[in-house]
């Protein structure tokens, strides 16, 4: 077994593209942009068995004063999940072989990052990654997270029929309004609108900077798309989606802008139809574990899926995590302008 840093972007991207585990967030340029804007150092590991590449494992390293941290994905990148991408060969192999490869990957990455002596390690794994036993055996704790998927390979009428009755009525009413969906690339405006919605809840929008989002929009024009919904001259809803390998992820936004119309619902349904027209088979709506939002999201009649985060935290790491969620994210939001609105 061996683990080493991969410095060949072509090999990296080919592996991501070929593997069913590979996500847009795993692409080399995506990781490099995240590195540039989050202040973390990217360590793009490859894990081998002999000459066979078993897995890619991008991790991000950061040192804050005395605390060394290892993340995948990095904080402030808004990447919902990352972790390893098993190779296409592993994905096609028998469950027993997969199990053995997953074990190797967890053992190797744990040993390698152990050399950095981190006080905080956090890997948020994608929904496909259900077997977290190798991480547990390596001393990681696990937390369950939830997300929703809508099967959009079905005819639009069937998808619509699954929606909640009130939602169908709302969409019908919104359809009678002069609403216009425009593809845009105004990251500054987007972050301002979404940031205000976060501020209403006493939080900061956890994104490195608008420039980070702008770089992604420019680097991945076919995969990262931003839309504003206009009602007259007013913005009624905003959204940024990621599209890759037949799946569209409702990534960020959909902030209620106080326009007084059902812009979020109309926006989401418009994007779902667009995703379908562009050949996507699945539409992901994240954040099914958020008690405040599950009723908004479940009215689209999605399927629930679970994904897992695994972590190792020393005392210092625990204290830093507590401080981040309870002090930093909240105090930074103080003083931000408040607007009226509903759910985000």
């Amino acid at each position, binding site marked *: 077994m061996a683990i080493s840093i991969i410095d060949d972007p072509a090999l990296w991207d080919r592996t991501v593209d070929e593997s069913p585990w590979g996500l847009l967030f795993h692409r080399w340029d995506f990781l490099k942009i995240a590195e540039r804007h989050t202040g973390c150092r990217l360590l793009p590991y490859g894990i081998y068995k002999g000459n066979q590449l078993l897995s890619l494992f991008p991790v991000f390293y950061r040192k804050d004063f005395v605390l060394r941290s290892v993340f995948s994905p990095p904080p402030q990148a808004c990447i919902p999940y990352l972790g390893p991408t098993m190779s296409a060969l592993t994905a096609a192999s*028998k*469950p*027993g072989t997969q*199990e*053995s490869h997953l074990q190797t990957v967890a053992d190797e990455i744990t040993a390698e990052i152990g050399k950095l002596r981190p006080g905080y390690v956090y890997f948020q794994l994608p929904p496909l990654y*259900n*077997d*977290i*036993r190798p991480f*547990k*055996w390596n001393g990681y704790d*696990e937390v*369950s997270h*939830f997300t*929703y998927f809508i099967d959009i390979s079905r005819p639009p009428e069937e998808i619509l029929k*699954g929606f*909640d009755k009130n939602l169908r009525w709302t969409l019908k009413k919104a359809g009678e309004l002069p609403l216009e969906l425009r593809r845009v690339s105004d990251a500054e405006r987007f972050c301002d609108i979404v940031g205000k919605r976060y501020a209403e809840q006493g939080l900061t929008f956890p994104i490195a900077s608008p420039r980070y989002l702008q770089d992604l929009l420019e680097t991945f024009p076919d995969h990262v798309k931003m839309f504003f919904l206009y009602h007259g001259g007013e913005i009624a809803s905003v959204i940024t989606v990621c599209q890759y390998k037949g799946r569209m992820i409702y990534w960020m936004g959909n902030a209620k802008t106080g326009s007084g119309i059902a812009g979020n619902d109309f926006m989401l349904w418009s994007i779902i139809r667009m995703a379908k027209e562009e050949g996507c088979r699945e539409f992901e709506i994240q954040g*099914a*574990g958020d*008690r405040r939002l*599950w*009723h908004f999201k*479940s*009215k*689209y*009649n*999605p*399927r*629930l*899926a*679970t994904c*897992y985060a695994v972590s190792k935290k020393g005392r210092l790491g625990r204290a830093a995590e507590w401080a981040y969620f309870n002090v930093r994210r909240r105090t930074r939001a103080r003083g931000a302008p408040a607007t009226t609105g509903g759910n985000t």
Partner: protein
Amino acid sequence: MTVRLIEDGAVWDRFLDETPYGSIFHRWRMLKIVEKYSDYKLLPYGVYRGAELICVFPLFFRAYRGMKLVFSRPPQSLLPYLGFVMGPTYPGLKQKRKEAYLSEVAAGITAEIRRLSPNFVTLQTEPCFEDIRPFLWQDYRADLSYDYYIDLGKPLEEIWAGFDSTCKKQIKHAGSLGLRMGLSDDVNEFYRIMGDNFKAKGRRSLYRVGDPAYLKEFLDAYPEHIKMYFLYEGEKVAGAHVVCEYRGKFTLWLGSASGHYNEYMLWELIKMEKAAGLKIFEIPGADARPVLPFKSKFNPGLELKFNVCRKDALGTVAEWTFANIVKAWI
């Protein structure tokens, strides 16, 4: 929504007959046998929406030396899983309604549990039931655990082809020794074999202190569903397994065999259950790293289940004591 204890075993079992969820371990007599042989009181809760019974939730309660404990499944009961069972209408509901039903169940049951003011609560879900969010929002924490399964819907040749080469050799070798498999009800012999096997591995087990009559009652209560197979090498019993067959699912529940006869026994059971029309061959317990080399050589898939748990300081101490002292003593 109302939550009340169900006293009529027929109502309980009829609900289980109608819903696609639930296992043999949820059946009324199973639960009563567990209660009889443990120090726990069975609290068979039903959750109603109007007149409709939407969920059954078997809890086991014990007050012991100032501690109050609630389990579903109770420790040392040998049951692989228990937890709540949603009703027949649940799978056909839209997601929003499913969530509403589940929220009501979690709210109702956790309110009942609060009335018992326990120091330690642990509840389990059935394999593949993922939605534990309403419990997490009631300040329970969740741990994930795994079982293995083999899809018996595949052709036998395909199942065989999935086994690793060593496993195939061991089965072929055992097959040439004239071993014989048969049903048995000799629970004393089963406990002796299991106790000896654990002892040979330097491990302590429940079989040293447990009452074989406990297992006998299961066998007698559900002869169609719970069976005990012995593997004979000449006149000597070389292996034993207690298995469940319930609603197209086979569960390799308890047992082991000496040497490499386990592989042979499993293969014989797979062939037998496939021929009998069962669809899933379940091998509980895929969490412990030491058992992996044995279980994973059959190329099984993984299924997930959750333990949701809540404990106060006293409960935390009790859990530690059980895991580190009581279990070691047994």
